């Protein structure tokens, strides 16, 4: 009789590996098309020149970090209400990927600022609030690591994830509320309808969708890693109990 026991690898997300592989392939193809659109189709900005193409990565990456921290906010709230480890896993994975995205938003912004503002960094509102956002979510990951137990770490991190999200709208509105040399928003309620050429807007939208897929794939990878960490912890615990 055939063995009907599950042959899943430790830490695998059940039926999700197929979905994850499909997502990886779709993301890869979309990213290649995105690069073609950015370098071959997008018009060269008449004022800023070629360096303006950084915009098609910088803006979606920055928006994705906001989305990641929104997911952290919702998942943290759900964790505090339901105390289900699944919500904590989603918040943890999303926070880590969000930190990667906000780090990239800062780095690409710094590289873009040098030729345009003639400086790598300036303490203007958008950059300062984004730096604070980065620090908050690095603190989120540190709280989790340094907590005395995993359960306490999850609770402390959930509180930081909820309170820390307050900075996200501050980052978005910083260019509206205070005098800033950073350009006005091109996406959202304060975006001017004529701020972008039609082709540029379409390529930006495509780039954004590509990064949504990339984000989903990265979160799934991180959640699978957490499952493996838990499985390893379980095996080690069993061995300790046996005195090995």
């Amino acid at each position, binding site marked *: 009789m055939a063995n009907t026991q599950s042959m899943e690898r430790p830490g695998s997300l059940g039926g999700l590996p197929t979905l994850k592989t499909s997502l990886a392939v779709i993301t890869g193809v979309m990213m290649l098309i995105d690069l073609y659109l950015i370098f071959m189709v997008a018009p060269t900005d008449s004022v800023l020149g070629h360096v303006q193409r950084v915009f098609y*990565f910088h803006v979606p990456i920055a928006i994705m970090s906001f989305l990641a921290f929104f997911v952290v906010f919702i998942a943290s709230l759900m964790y505090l209400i339901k105390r289900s480890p699944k919500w904590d896993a989603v918040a943890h994975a999303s926070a880590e990927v969000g930190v990667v995205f906000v780090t990239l938003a800062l780095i690409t912004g710094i590289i873009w600022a040098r030729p345009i503002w003639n400086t790598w960094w300036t303490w203007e509102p958008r950059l300062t609030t984004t730096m604070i956002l980065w620090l908050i979510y690095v603190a989120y990951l540190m709280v989790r690591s340094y907590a005395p137990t995993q359960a306490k770490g999850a609770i402390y991190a959930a509180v930081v994830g909820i309170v820390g999200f307050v900075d996200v709208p501050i980052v978005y509105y910083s260019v509206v509320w205070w005098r800033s040399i950073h350009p006005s928003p091109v996406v959202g309620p304060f975006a001017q309808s004529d701020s972008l050429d039609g082709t540029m807007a379409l390529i930006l939208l495509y780039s954004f969708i590509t990064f949504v897929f990339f984000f989903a794939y*990265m979160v799934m990878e991180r959640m699978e890693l957490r499952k493996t960490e838990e499985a390893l912890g379980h095996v080690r615990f069993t061995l300790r109990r046996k005195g090995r």
Partner: protein
Amino acid sequence: MLDFILLSSHLPSSNLPYLFAAFAVSWVVLFGYLFYVNRRQHEMRKEIARLQRVLDEDQSDE
């Protein structure tokens, strides 16, 4: 700031190293992170398999 914009508009091609740097850093960070996650995953799976063998040997000795 306007001076800087006008200055850069005269020599748009001079900004190409910045364009290259921004995209290169983006790829290195994104794929570096995925590589790090996959490597840890692989190492942990190997460790689980090793410890599982120890557990199985214990059970067969009993």
